[in-house]
């Protein structure tokens, strides 16, 4: 075992995949200078040079389009979108093109594009630097979506994404970049579509997306003795590992979904829909979603905190679900 940060896990995944497949290249703003603004491409220049690590102008639509064309002609692009908010400049290549061409072409083209985009609330960067769009992309047929919340998953999911023949959106969490965790030596992958039971419990199932996994675990620890909380991190949203979630709910009979994205039409609603479909008769109380406020994220630090789930609000919501 060794210690690794989330940011370095991202670097490692890219380095390893670049080493085994020379069609893999990384493209994005500032990625080529000093390991990137957030140091998520450190070490790549030294090892693979500017041919395979391409810093771009601020032209998101063009370089995401470039990824589509490159993937259709035999390459395997990894695109870094600095903040997920900026993906709004590149919605045509993502949604109209890469998500659809494999299908529209009758299966002629595969589309091995990985989009790495960072989300996360908590760095006081206000409404245009705090958005979480996982629900949008989950609603876009043809895209896969995952949200690594641990260092282990940051590396393992990214490697699976790069190897996947379809477009995969990997939502990285900016608040976690420099957090260290113990990880195994060497290589590993985490398959897309496999949830992790992050904590075993018997009274209630908490499904947490991305960073909220940590807060949910903290809340669960706090409730220890009072309520036995099972925490599940789905890790990928599309495909979604409903088997693991459903098994948990058949045991606990209760569900709380937690995410930072706005509650209205968030991915929480989608999980509730599935659970109602598959586990209705096992439910002891109505499944609930604790998402972010249905507001843009305010700048003022105190209000920012109030807009997303926190350890205490999660604990309270768990209590309510278990009333």
């Amino acid at each position, binding site marked *: 075992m060794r210690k690794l940060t989330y940011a370095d896990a991202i670097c490692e995944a890219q380095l390893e995949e670049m080493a085994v497949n020379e069609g893999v290249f990384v493209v994005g703003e500032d990625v080529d200078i000093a390991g990137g603004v957030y140091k998520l491409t450190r070490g790549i220049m030294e090892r693979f040079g500017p041919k395979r690590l391409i810093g771009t102008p601020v*032209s998101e639509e063009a370089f995401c389009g470039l990824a589509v064309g490159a993937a259709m002609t035999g390459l395997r692009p990894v695109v870094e979108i600095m903040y997920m908010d900026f993906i709004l400049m590149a919605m045509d290549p993502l949604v109209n*093109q890469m998500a659809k061409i494999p299908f529209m072409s009758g299966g002629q083209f595969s589309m091995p594009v990985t989009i790495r985009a960072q989300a996360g609330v908590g760095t006081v960067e206000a409404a245009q630097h705090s958005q979480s769009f996982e629900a949008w992309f989950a609603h876009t047929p043809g895209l896969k979506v995952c949200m690594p919340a641990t260092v282990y998953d940051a590396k393992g999911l990214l490697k699976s994404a790069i190897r996947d023949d379809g477009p995969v959106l990997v939502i990285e969490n900016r608040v976690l970049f420099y957090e260290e965790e113990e990880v195994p030596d060497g290589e590993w992958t985490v398959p897309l579509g496999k949830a992790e039971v992050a904590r075993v419990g018997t009274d209630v199932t908490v499904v947490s997306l991305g960073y909220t996994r940590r807060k949910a675990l903290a809340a669960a620890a706090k409730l220890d003795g009072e309520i036995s909380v099972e925490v599940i991190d789905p890790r990928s949203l599309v495909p979604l590992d409903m088997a693991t979630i459903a098994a948990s709910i058949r045991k606990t009979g209760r569900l709380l979904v937690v995410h930072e994205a706005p509650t209205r039409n968030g991915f929480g609603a989608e999980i509730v829909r599935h659970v109602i479909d598959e586990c209705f008769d096992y439910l002891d109380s109505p499944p609930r979603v604790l998402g972010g406020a249905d507001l843009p994220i305010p700048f003022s630090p105190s209000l920012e905190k109030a807009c997303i789930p926190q350890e205490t609000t999660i604990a309270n919501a768990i209590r309510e679900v278990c009333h």
Partner: protein
Amino acid sequence: MNDLTRNQKCEMFRRMVTIRRFEEEVKRLYRAGEITGAIHLYIGQEAVAVGTCAVLRDDDYVTSTHRPHGHCIAKVFDLKRTMAEMMGKATGLSGGFGGSMHQFCKDKGFLGGNGIVGGGIGIALGAAFSAQYRGTDQVTVCFFSDGAANQGVLYECLNLAALWKFPVIFMCENNRYAATTPVEKSACTKDIAPRAAPYGIPWAICDGNDVLDVYRCVSEAVSRARAGQGATFIEAKTYRVEPHCGIIADERNKDELTTWMSAAQDPILRFEARLLQEKTLSADDIKAIREEVEKELEDAVEFARQSPSPTLESFATRRSQSYA
């Protein structure tokens, strides 16, 4: 063009006639209800697609638009599968999943029509990047029209293509209209090609109704691209003879239409006259070509009609492959 052989010219003529007749047939089938959806015809612009693709190799790339039949026939030349796609049949180029606007042919480097105006420009950039990355001398041609020239992505891509010396040709078919909007109302200047100038990208304007002028212009651009000298921007002045789309009323000036369809302007009549005049082909040769085209078209329609629709099963298979 002295460097073109008789066979080449003959083939160019054949393809132009094929496109024209294909489009006329599509129009007829659309009216008869055998083809449905949004159909954008290429009639009047045949010289651009053919003059361009005649320069290209099979392994070169082309990105196309919502008006792709001409480009597709010029590059892929598979009437049967193109017609079958128009009818949404399983034997179509895209297996019936794409339709008129989404013909794709990987084997011939045809990276698809595109329902999004400007949607193919970034893809062309990526194909050009890919050739450079893989160290091949493949060239990419990006077709778009005057309307798409107002999408910002074009300028992002011009900058990148220039910065990185990509082997790409931006082929702007200025057919004077974007849907119902005349180019004078959408572009602030008379010509579009000079918009490439500030990026240091060589640009040229050619007569888009003269297949040899198109060929000449594209040949230069392709040579430059293959030699690693980067991008070229070409504006081909032409005219969209049909209404924008099957469903849309056309309120254009009749005189304008008549002029562009006259023997002095129609790209096929012009090329035919030239071939006759320079004695490359005789009137009998031309008649024979036209008859062959007719026959092939008939076969294509028949093939398309007889072909099965894609089934829910093939659908499910594809789904499990690419769709989660």
